[in-house]
């Protein structure tokens, strides 16, 4: 089951996931199906073979579930891999990390199931909740809201590419156990007659407990622009769903090529610091606190490999320069570099400076 295409039982057209309704939609007969209904169907399958595979090492994909060898090869394969489209039989060339795409010829959505099985089976997924039209609208609204973007920048026609991509992330949850010891002071000052009294109380403070931290996410795809992909965080992680291939139909998806071992140290360190901060914050009500010891050990941690929805957008400015944006497919949060109208920015900065100068001089006059 390496290459999957979800077919409509009514007309044999392609079913794609519809973010606005959360159902599967046939674009031809407009039928809609729920997840349960889709699960009952048998998706059409194609074939996979490595590009230029002279040994003809093709793997039939009519078996349910992929064998490990298939999954491994996809993982190791640095080169492009060729699939055949289940709808038209044409060859589909993809990157080694592509997990869902469209056939170049018939434009039907295909999910490369083999890429997301075994080790690479995502634990969780957040399906797209913003569809293409909405994404476009939200992007334009976002740009319009930005006051220092040149006026000529707002034009729907300049959106040259807008595609929904499920990006792979590593998500780390950790539970810590530990304790914190500190010396704290409370100072009280009062006057009686012509004397000023200062009372200093010294405390030994100790806290013991557990800290739970969830949903620290980090990019797991080397070729992704880390800034754009992490810039759309956070997601509403409590709406995460168990992974099903169907969600990928109609979108592009990438599988991870960064393993958790590469991120573990930095993410664990980061989490530890957050946990210490939280522990420190349990000490309150003192004038000053001097932490003597703050020790936390990981009691339990969980790594989740998740696919998160991102709209990637390429925008061609009128001077021909390309701008890249990413948008959170769930919340609509946009991230990306914006062009700046320097004249306007200078003018506004100048006005602010002039007002500040005026107020400063007025203040100087009144003092």
């Amino acid at each position, binding site marked *: 089951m390496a290459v999957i295409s979800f077919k409509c039982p009514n007309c044999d057209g392609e079913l794609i996931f519809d973010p606005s309704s959360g159902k599967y939609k046939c674009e031809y007969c407009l039928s809609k199906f729920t997840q349960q209904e889709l699960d009952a169907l048998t998706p059409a399958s194609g074939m996979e073979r490595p590009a230029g595979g002279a040994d003809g090492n093709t793997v039939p994909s009519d078996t349910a579930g992929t064998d490990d060898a298939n999954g491994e090869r996809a993982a190791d394969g640095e080169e492009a891999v060729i699939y055949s489209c289940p709808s038209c039989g044409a060859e589909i060339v993809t990157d080694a990390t592509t997990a869902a795409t469209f056939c170049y010829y018939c434009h039907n959505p295909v999910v490369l199931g083999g890429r997301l099985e075994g080790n690479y089976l995502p634990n969780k997924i957040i399906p797209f909740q913003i569809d293409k039209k909405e994404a476009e609208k939200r992007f334009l609204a976002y740009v319009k809201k*930005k006051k*220092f*973007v040149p006026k000529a920048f707002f034009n729907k026609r300049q959106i040259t590419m807008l595609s929904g991509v499920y990006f792979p992330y590593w998500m780390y949850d950790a539970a810590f156990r530990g*304790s914190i010891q500190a010396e*704290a002071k409370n100072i009280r000052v009062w*006057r009686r007659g*012509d004397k*000023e*009294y*200062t*009372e*200093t*109380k*010294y*405390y*030994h*403070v*100790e*806290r*013991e*407990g*557990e*800290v*739970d*931290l*969830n*949903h*620290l996410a980090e990019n797991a795809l080397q070729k992704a622009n880390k*800034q754009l992909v*992490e*810039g*759309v*965080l*956070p997601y509403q992680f409590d709406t995460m769903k168990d992974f099903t291939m169907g969600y990928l139909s109609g979108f592009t998806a990438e599988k991870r090529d960064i393993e958790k071992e590469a991120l573990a140290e930095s993410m664990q360190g*980061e989490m530890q610091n*957050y*946990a210490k901060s*939280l522990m420190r*914050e*349990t000490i309150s009500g003192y004038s000053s606190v001097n932490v003597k010891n703050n020790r936390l050990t990981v009691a339990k941690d969980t790594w989740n490999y998740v696919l998160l929805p991102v709209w990637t957008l390429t925008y061609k400015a009128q001077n021909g320069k390309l701008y890249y944006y990413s948008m959170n497919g769930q919340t609509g949060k946009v*991230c990306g*570099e*914006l*062009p*700046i109208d320097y004249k306007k*920015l*200078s003018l*506004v*900065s*100048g006005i*602010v*400076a*002039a*007002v*500040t*100068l005026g107020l*400063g*001089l007025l203040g*100087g*006059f009144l003092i």
Partner: protein
Amino acid sequence: MIRQMRLKKTCLAMMVGLFAFFCGMTDPVWALQAGEAEGIYDYAKLLTEEEALELAGELSELAAKSGWEIFVLTTEDAKGSSAREYSEAFLDGHLIGDDGIVYTIDMDNREVYLATTGDAIYYLTDNRIEDVIDEGYDYVVDGAYKAAFSGMITATGTAYDKGIPSDQYTYDEDTGKIVRYQEPKSVKWYEVLVALALACGAFLAVFLGVLGKYRLKWDAYKYDFHANGRVDVTNQEDRLVNQLVTHRHIQRNTSSGSSHSSGSRSSVHTGSGGRSYGGGGRKF
């Protein structure tokens, strides 16, 4: 008709002549004295011509520095008024602006007097007037009038250089009202510098703020550990280990509040001309 016109002409000529005569009469001595030595009104003829010229130089120097109108006045006949009244009447008659002082040696009342008005009141507090009189008094007693005036003028210059005392206040002897001196509102050069620095800061803050935000230099996503974290404290201890009380004596600020130190008081009263005057003198 012609005779009538002639008569009118004669009348007019006589009136002009009379007016000229009276004008000359009203100020004959002063005009004579003030001719060369400006600001010196030596009616008692205590100064020689050279002395008067020298004093005039000293006066104009102090006048240029302080911006006040400054006079030296001597009299043999105060016309029944006190030295203070005589000095103030003189100032009323001679001041063009608001700020001025006059050093008077009144041979009639045998008193040396310094009258102040306008801004000079703030600079020449009661104590400072005493200091100024001190500088001239002994010379007056000895009859060295030029030296007396010179000493007083120098002492006034010193007082002016010290500026207005920070705790200067004006005490109105007629009403008992006390008015604290308040600097005229103005923008100082360092205030301009601070305002300029703030303005530059504001410019950069806005400019770089927007630039950085649009270029994704900051404003990046930061994991919100408060929203994603939960602390469960199972054991908690806050033990008081020591307690310390110290005290210190509070210095009462005696100069503040309703009590005013007499050191920086300028006593004033309203002169007969309606002007507010300060001043002081000493009999010899």
